[in-house]
C-alpha cells in the first residue's frame, strides 16, 4: 500500500530536492496523506497548510487529477496507489 505525492518545484527544496515522495502506508484521506508527508518533510506542509490546519487559499491538492476541494476537501478519499499532486493555484499579483 502506498501513495505518491508529487511536489511542485517551489517546494522541492524543502524535501531535499525530491519531486516525488512515496508514502508507504495506507492513507484514507488527503488529511492523512498530508500528515504522513509532514512526518518526512514538515517544511513542505508549513507551506501547503496554515497553522490552523487549513489548506492555504491559493494552493490546490489533486487526487488522481481531481481537485480535492470538489471531492471532500481534506476529507477527500485517497485510493491505494493514488498520486497526490500539489500545485499553486492559477493566481497571483
Amino acid at each position, binding site marked *: 500500500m502506498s501513495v505518491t505525492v508529487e511536489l511542485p518545484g517551489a*517546494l522541492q527544496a524543502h524535501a531535499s530536492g525530491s519531486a516525488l515522495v512515496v508514502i508507504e502506508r495506507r492513507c484514507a484521506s488527503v488529511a492523512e496523506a498530508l500528515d504522513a508527508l509532514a512526518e518526512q518533510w514538515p517544511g513542505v506542509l*508549513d*507551506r501547503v497548510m*496554515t497553522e490552523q490546519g487549513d489548506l492555504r487559499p491559493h494552493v490546490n491538492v489533486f487526487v488522481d487529477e481531481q481537485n480535492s476541494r470538489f471531492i471532500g476537501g481534506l476529507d477527500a478519499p485517497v485510493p491505494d496507489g493514488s498520486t497526490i499532486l500539489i500545485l499553486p493555484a492559477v493566481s*497571483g499579483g
Partner: protein
Amino acid sequence: MARKGVGSAGDVVVLVGTQKGAFIVSSDGERKKWRIDGPHFPGESVYALALDDRGGRHRIFAGTRSFHWGSVLRESDDFGKTWTSPERQNVKFPADSGLSLVQIWQVTPGRASEPEKLYCGVEPAALFESDDAGETWAPVAGLLNHEHRAKWMPGGGGLCLHTIVLDPKNRDRMLVAISTGGVYRTDDGGRNWQPRNSGVRAEFQPNKHPEFGQCVHKVVHNPANPGRLFLQNHWGLYRSDDWGDSWTDIANGVPSDFGFAMQMHPHDRDTVYIVPLESDVFRCVPEAKMRVYRTRNAGAAWEPLTKGLPQKDAWETVLRDGLTADSMKPAGIYFGTRSGKLFGSVDDGESWKEIADGLPSIACVKAAVVGGGEAR
C-alpha cells in the same frame, strides 16, 4: 546591477521592499552614487525590512510573503549575498489561537541594552518577540489574548500591527499601533495593554472618538525625547507629550491630514516628515504634486519640500513604511512610491533626487548607516 563591497562601515543602506521582492540600495557616506541590488525574493511581497546592527551583527531581516506558500522571516548576514530559507514557518500563531499568519508588517530591533531582543508586528494584528536575535519567535500573550481583539477590524491593507515604538530606557514600556484598532501601550513588559487613543478621531465610526478602533497609520518618536509622539492617522495628524495618554491635533497648514507615512528626523526632536494624500478615496498626493511636508517645531507649522520632486502629473502614493531617514548629518530622507520610484534627499529634505524608477510597487523603505545602529 553591481554589488561592490556593500556593508563597509559608514556605508548608507536603503532597504526597499516591494510587491515583487526586495532591493538593497547602497552608497558610501557621500550618498552621491547609488548601487541597486535586486530583486531578492522575486515574486514575493516584502512589507518588512530591518538592519540589526547590534551585538556585532550586520543582519538584515526580511519578512517575505509568497502568494501561494505563506510568509516567513529571512535573514542575511552578508548584505543580501545569501539569505536564510527557514525550513519551518518561523513566525506562527499557536494552534489554539485560531489565527494564521498572513504577513509580517514590521521588524523592530530591541533596545541597545538588550541586543538579542527583536520584535515583529504581523497580520492578523499581533506582536511577536525573539530573545535570541531572531532564531525563534513567540507571540506576546497579553496582546494576543486582548479582550478588544474581536472588535478590531481590518483596514484596506488588512488587520495589521504595523508600528512598534520602544521606550529606550524603560524595558517595561512600549507602544504599538494597529489598523484598525488604534494605539495600545504596555507599562509592564507586555502583560497588559491599554488603548491610548484619547483625542484621535475615527471618521468612519458613529462615535468619532471611541476608546479604541481608530485606524492609526504610523507613530514615530525621537528616542532622545521618547514621551513625545507624533501620529499620522486615517484622517488626522497628532502629537502627544505624555506617551500617548492624550493627543493634540497638529494639522496646521497641510493640504490634507490624510496620509500614511511619517518619519522622525534622526537628530532634531521637533522635526517630522509626512507625505499628505488627497483623501481616503483617491489616496494620491494632492494636486498631483509630489510634496513631502516637514515641521521643525513639533507640528506648530508645516512646510512643503518640493525641490527636485515632480510638481505636475505626479499621481503618487507613499505607504505607511515608505518614508525613512538615515542617521547622517545632514540627514538623508528617502521615500518610495507605489509606482516604483525611489527618491532621496541628503540635506534634511531641502532638495531631492530620483534614485530609482521602474521598481515594483514599493511597500517599505528603511535606511541605516552600517555600524550606526538599526534601520529606521
